[in-house]
């Protein structure tokens, strides 16, 4: 009998060591497809699991951190409030890599305020919105990202316009914004890995069909609709800092974005000639896509120069969480000095 040893990544861990508990979501749920790509991305990046913290709010999507990275601490918080928890975790220990998973209800409705402020602060983390346009756990009510005119399973037509979380994030100055589709694993994993190299908030809005409540004819978040309508802005490649490879390409056909850790994003252009470093173009493109009912995917915007939250906080290299008393408790002479000033 031949036993084959499973392959390992650059830090000697197998893919299995990046997995979590078995999913309890519906068979075929888009979220499980995203979970698989998260596992793949972290495995391929060779991230140390114990240096990752997984966070979420409430909803089907927010359950998923239990299904990946078993060896990372997880924090399934309260509805719509994952951003504040992530901000606190980041402040306490900026050496951790944070990945947050949220849904369209969790982010675009109850948590919209916290989402905006997380982006505004540029808290370093990957923020994934598993976007299916409905509330799954409460059985199919529309969410705030459901498109105008989209039909619910019950036949009800959505009469309110959607909130575009990518457009909003860019408007708020988010330094990494991507949109993808749970049925496009190749693009999604590249985006996830690029987000993992980004120093700042990386928002990835992933259309993730709800097979139970929003996968029917007339829904704009259904597998069939998304597959037919997906229009990638570019072909996305990610080259990590630890395996630099050069490729030949026609001048002008490729855009390369260097990331702060030395990794590179390579974007093979389509006829659109889209430049994701241009904020105005990004906003304009999203607006036009809405008007034309296009489903654009890819890296919508990136700015590697923006200061992230931990830089602004001006903390030292060691995490605040484990600073010793010698550093956190000022000397007796300090108290004496303060007391003298109050006499």
């Amino acid at each position, binding site marked *: 009998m031949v036993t084959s040893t499973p392959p390992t990544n650059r830090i000697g861990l197998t893919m299995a060591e990046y997995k979590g508990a078995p999913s309890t979501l519906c068979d075929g749920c888009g979220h499980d497809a995203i979970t698989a790509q998260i596992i793949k991305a972290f495995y391929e990046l060779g991230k140390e699991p114990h240096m990752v913290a997984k966070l979420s709010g409430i909803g089907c999507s927010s359950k998923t951190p239990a299904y990946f990275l078993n060896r990372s601490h997880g924090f399934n918080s309260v509805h719509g409030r994952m951003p504040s928890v992530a901000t606190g975790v980041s402040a306490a220990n900026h050496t951790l890599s944070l990945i947050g998973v949220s849904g369209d209800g969790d982010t675009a409705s109850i948590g919209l305020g*916290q989402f905006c402020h997380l982006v505004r602060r540029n808290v370093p983390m990957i923020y994934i919105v598993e976007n299916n346009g409905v509330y799954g756990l409460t059985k199919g009510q529309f969410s705030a990202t459901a498109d105008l005119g989209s039909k619910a399973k019950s036949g009800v037509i959505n009469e309110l316009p959607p909130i575009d979380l990518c457009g909003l994030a860019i408007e708020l100055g988010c330094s990494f914004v991507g949109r993808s589709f749970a049925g496009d694993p190749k693009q999604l994993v590249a985006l996830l890995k690029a987000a993992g190299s980004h120093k700042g908030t990386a928002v990835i809005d992933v259309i993730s069909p709800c097979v139970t409540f929003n996968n029917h004819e007339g829904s704009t978040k259904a597998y069939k609709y998304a597959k037919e309508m997906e229009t990638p802005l570019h072909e996305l490649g990610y080259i990590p800092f630890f395996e630099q490879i050069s490729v030949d390409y026609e001048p002008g056909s490729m855009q390369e974005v260097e990331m702060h850790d030395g990794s590179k994003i390579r974007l093979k252009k389509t006829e659109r000639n889209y430049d994701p470093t241009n904020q105005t173009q990004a906003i304009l493109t999203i607006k036009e896509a809405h008007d034309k009912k296009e489903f654009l995917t890819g890296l919508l915007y990136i700015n590697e120069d923006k200061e992230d939250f931990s830089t602004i906080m001006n903390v030292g290299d060691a995490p605040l969480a484990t600073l010793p008393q010698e550093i956190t408790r000022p000397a007796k002479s300090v108290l004496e000095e303060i007391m003298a000033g109050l006499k």
Partner: protein
Amino acid sequence: MNTLAVGSKEKLEKGRVVNDFSIQVATVNGSGSQSSNSVLMRSIFQMGIPVSGKNLFPSNIAGLPTWFTIRVNKNGYVARKSDIEILIAMNPQTAIDDVKSLSTGAVCISPVELKLDAIRKDVLHYQVPFTELAAKASENLKLRKLLMNMLYVGVVAELLNIDHGQIENSISKQFEGKTKAIDLNLNAVKIGREWARENLKKEDPYFVEPMDKTQGKIIIDGNAACALGSLFAGVTVVTWYPITPSSSLCEQLIDYLKEYRIDKESGKASFAVIQAEDELAAIGMALGAGWAGARSMTSTSGPGISLMAEFAGYGYFTEIPTVVFDVQRVGPSTGMPTRTSQADLISAYTLSHGDTKHIVLLPGSIIECYEMAGEAFDLAEKFQTPIFVLTDLDLGMNNWMSDPFEYPTKPINRGKVMTAADIEKAGVFERYRDVDGDGIPYRTLPGTDHPQAAYFTRGSGHNEKAGYTEKPEDYLNLMNRLDKKFQTARKFVPAPVVSVEKGAKIGIIAYGSSDFAIVETRDQLKVANIPTSYLRVRALPFTDELRKFVESHDHVYVVEQNRDAQMRDLIRLELPDLAMKIRSVRHYDGLPIDAQFVTDAIMEQER
């Protein structure tokens, strides 16, 4: 009632009242009177005489009436006193009402043009041409308005015989290093003083005379004391959202952190302060930070406490340390944001939905604000739970005399945190197992390099391994352990301060800022032959001393500053068999409780 007023009896006998009176300054919010009032208070303090200062201000930045009361008391009573002996009526808007509220024989210092003498003939008036004098103090019109305040300091100083050297010291302290401001203000005081000397005939009985009762003491507000307690507790993550009356807690903490917690060489901070978008986010951040291992805190007032409810229950159920300061103000709703109250007791104690109960600390003095702030961080990590520290506007924002604070003697206690080596040694780590039998489990911090270190924190039902569960027995196990942990806390929270008076049949129970009044009340009752014992509650859950105290008295009065007798009700729930012995005295008009009120209320029921 006369027999009870210790001060007024002396007044009648000797005709000269020394170091025992209240001065009230009525001005307009934003007129700059704050500095003058501080100088006046500090000058008396520096003469060795016990003082307390209370700022009664509106929810407004400029233009509305504000009152500052300085109580001078040789016995060291520092609670509010409702009777005012000396009024400085600088605000034309309120002058008529202000002078009408005085008792017969009180003193009124006022601008001459207000003609207040026509309103109250039975009050002793000193009328001062402030506008004219201000013209002498400065040519600048804007400055004249500000200096007007220093003119009354000069007039009062002359009338009461306040040492000029101490006024000079206080002004130097107030305007630290700003020579021009010091000279201008000092000059205004002199003008006021000289005018009074030449033009007023002293006809009132009030004087200050040097004592030695403030030697070594400091003057500070409760919010600053809480900030210092947090600083020396080694706080690392501070999250907050501005709200009166708690803002100055974090603002003063930020000043201290910037001064003392930035490494001189690297320029790097050993703290993070985040001004949140609201209180929901503030506590979310504090919990995230506490979970990741920081010593975290947030501070707020009633409306913020309401917003924090969901997360507070999350913190309790998932066992995450953090410290929440609640500087209470009058509610419900916006209520009276600049008035004091103790009405968040029950809401803080049970904050959230479901079976939730929190450890609550109740500092009753400035020193306790400092000490309990520090202790809260240790308790939060020891018990892995949010700790609520309840002060109030009176304690938090007013200036109080205090003994200087002592440097912590105990090392920082980070509680049951397992490192990778600990897990290796134990061979196992289960987040929610009661290993030691005290209800307190072990935790790990993210970043712990051990394959078994990670766990999943969830607000949903969880078993000892932090796994998801809806099994009845798992839920019961968890809830009962949380209760056991709470019972353990009884032995570790600050015990009450008990003062037993021999022969006393009745007891007083109070907490928080009511203590200042109770000290005085007990003396007043003693004069009326009603000796009392006193138990001051300093924390929830209650400790064993409470039952013993209630049992050993005929009945007890629970004195508090809320309408619904929240502490009395909690005590009745705690001691149902003794419920009939427990009576109530409540003061809830937004002003700090005063001793005479409590004394009268008890006398009424003792008749």
